[in-house]
């Protein structure tokens, strides 16, 4: 497979941006400066990065409650993301959606989603739309292992397969559905096994190796673009932090956590780049510093932005009750 040095470096930059964004979000949440909940993507960066490195801006993604990484990998703007987390008017959803509802239709980001399993069928809709309009767009549907017990997962795979839709289902299997280990909620170990029931390819990859994810995603995306239909890719990965910020994670064995920390995807790619002379230590340091500055700038933008006015609470909603409320 052709994978240029520039692409590898770009993927490092993306993973690092996600890591730094999430690390800052954890700090800000702990300080009480972010309202609501945040579900952080730290540890899983290789999945969104390796997949989205194969996408065009016009392609679609659907995301989850753990969506910041997907949005960043698809090109989301950190300023508007932080502003949304802060509940500011300049945020992606005018400060009314928060962490779990970030969307950017211009970049094909069809939305993070607070409902587990709600993205599957949106992705099928996007795939159907692309096929109907005759474009070469694809839609990547990100989801966790827990959501594959939802009916929507099965409905989506079935329909995408029957109509050979350009949808790539990417399961981020981090072993836990909230606090429940996968072995306690599924009679299978590999979600990819479920693909065979819908007559589509299902593969398992190391979700902590961005190069492995990139390779599998490239094959699946090329396949979807050429009209051969959907694929299910299961990425075995791990979240370094709790299900949500504040989760004490007493359900995980510290030894297990430690083992996965040793497989940190960013450290692995960093070592690969150094071993193969793609970059020197000082080059990586420079990238890291640039990203740190970008994050600080985005936070400042968010902090300096105004909160939405009270009247905005009844804007951009569907019901006629709005008029009564206004009165």
């Amino acid at each position, binding site marked *: *497979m052709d*994978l240029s040095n520039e692409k590898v470096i770009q993927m490092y930059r993306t993973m690092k941006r996600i890591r730094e964004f999430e690390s800052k979000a954890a700090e800000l949440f702990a300080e009480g400066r972010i309202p609501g909940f945040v579900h952080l993507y730290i540890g899983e960066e290789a999945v969104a990065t390796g997949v989205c490195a194969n996408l065009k801006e016009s392609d679609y993604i659907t995301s989850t409650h753990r969506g910041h990484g997907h949005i960043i990998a698809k090109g989301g703007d950190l300023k508007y993301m932080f502003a949304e987390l802060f509940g500011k008017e300049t945020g992606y959803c005018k400060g009314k959606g928060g962490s779990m509802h970030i969307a950017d239709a211009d970049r094909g980001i069809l939305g993070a989603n607070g409902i587990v399993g709600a993205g599957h069928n949106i992705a099928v809709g996007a795939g159907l739309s692309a096929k109907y309009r005759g474009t070469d767009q694809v839609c990547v549907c990100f989801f966790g292992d827990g959501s594959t017990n939802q009916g929507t997962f099965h409905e989506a795979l079935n329909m995408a397969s029957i109509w050979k839709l350009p949808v790539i289902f990417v399961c981020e299997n981090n072993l836990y559905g909230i606090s429940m280990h996968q*072995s306690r909620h599924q*009679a*299978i*170990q*590999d979600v*990819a*096994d479920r*693909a*065979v029931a819908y007559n589509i*390819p*299902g*593969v*398992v*990859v*190391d979700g902590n*190796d961005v*190069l*492995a994810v*990139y*390779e*599998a995603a490239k*094959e*699946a995306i090329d*396949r979807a673009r050429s009209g051969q239909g959907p*694929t299910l*890719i299961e990425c075995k990965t791990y979240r370094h932090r709790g299900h949500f910020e504040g989760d004490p994670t007493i359900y995980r064995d510290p030894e297990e956590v430690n*083992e996965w920390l040793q497989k940190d995807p960013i450290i692995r790619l960093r070592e*690969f780049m150094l*071993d*193969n002379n793609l970059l020197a230590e000082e080059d990586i340091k420079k990238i890291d510093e640039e990203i740190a500055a970008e994050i600080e700038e985005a936070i400042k933008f968010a902090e300096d932005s105004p909160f939405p006015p009270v009247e905005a609470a009844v804007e951009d909603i569907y019901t006629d009750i709005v008029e009564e409320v206004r009165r």
Partner: protein
Amino acid sequence: MKAIGIIANPASGKDIRRLVSHATVVDNNEKVNIVKRIILSAQGCGVDRVFIMPDTFLIGYKAIEDLKISKELKIDVEILNMKIKGNVMDTIRATKIMEEKGVKCLVVLGGDGTNRAVAKSITTTPLIGVSTGTNNVYPEMLEGTVVGMAAGVVATGACSIDQGCKRDKRIEIFKDGQLIDIALVDCVISRQKYVGSKAIWNIKDIDMVIVSRAHPASIGFSTIVGTSLIVGKDDDFGALIHVNSGNKKVRAPIAAGTIEEIRVDEPRILKLDEAVCFKPTYNGIMALDGEREVPFKVGENIEIKITSHGPYRVIVDRILELAQKNGFFET
């Protein structure tokens, strides 16, 4: 004790080759079924104890539970008491423990990669490789019932093991004089730099293939040799071929449903223990039995040999024929 061991790899048969080729899908519940058939037929052929490697899918526990519920299980079946990591080290450690426990035959469910892991630590115990992987050259497509019978014949000493087993060849990889890894079937020298999704399928990156066995009625990279030169399992030689060089073209089944036209030179026979030495001029990777495994760097001293130090393989049909001649099946 007439004991056998079973290692079933829950991760075999699921890699990217389901996407880049049309490789077989073997889900883990079918592996549980195969293990049940092996246990029952081994039990029916005189085995009194079975050891099973623990794994993340609990294949052994599920098989035991089902057989207890159906009241078919009459013998002791024990899951090894070992902490598992969910990686290849489980297979390597389980092999060692089973040999220490004195199993008379080891049954391995997986592909070439799983059997390669077993081969890293197995010594004298006869091995039966059962294909539940991807490109299966080393393990064979065998019905679990037949496997259990053959394991029973070996474990009960119903016939001469030496007549029904054969020591296989293996490929040994050395760096700076140190043995660093092995392969059972093929070693591919690739210009790719990274392990990535492990499987290898892109011909254009490949410079050389070294095989311990090769046949056109096979699958995978060994067939690049096998379509020009047959190297039998029992031949006392291997072979080497340069890829993307030379004037000859062959069509070879490098993956399930994938016939590639490949430019090659003539294959060269490698005698046992003959060293192939090279100093790479680029950073690349060696794929062993179809999986990218061993990175190498410019200037390293690489040495590759075919040796006769592979596993002691049970020739299933031969061992059952010998058992039949000895009246083993008469009750």
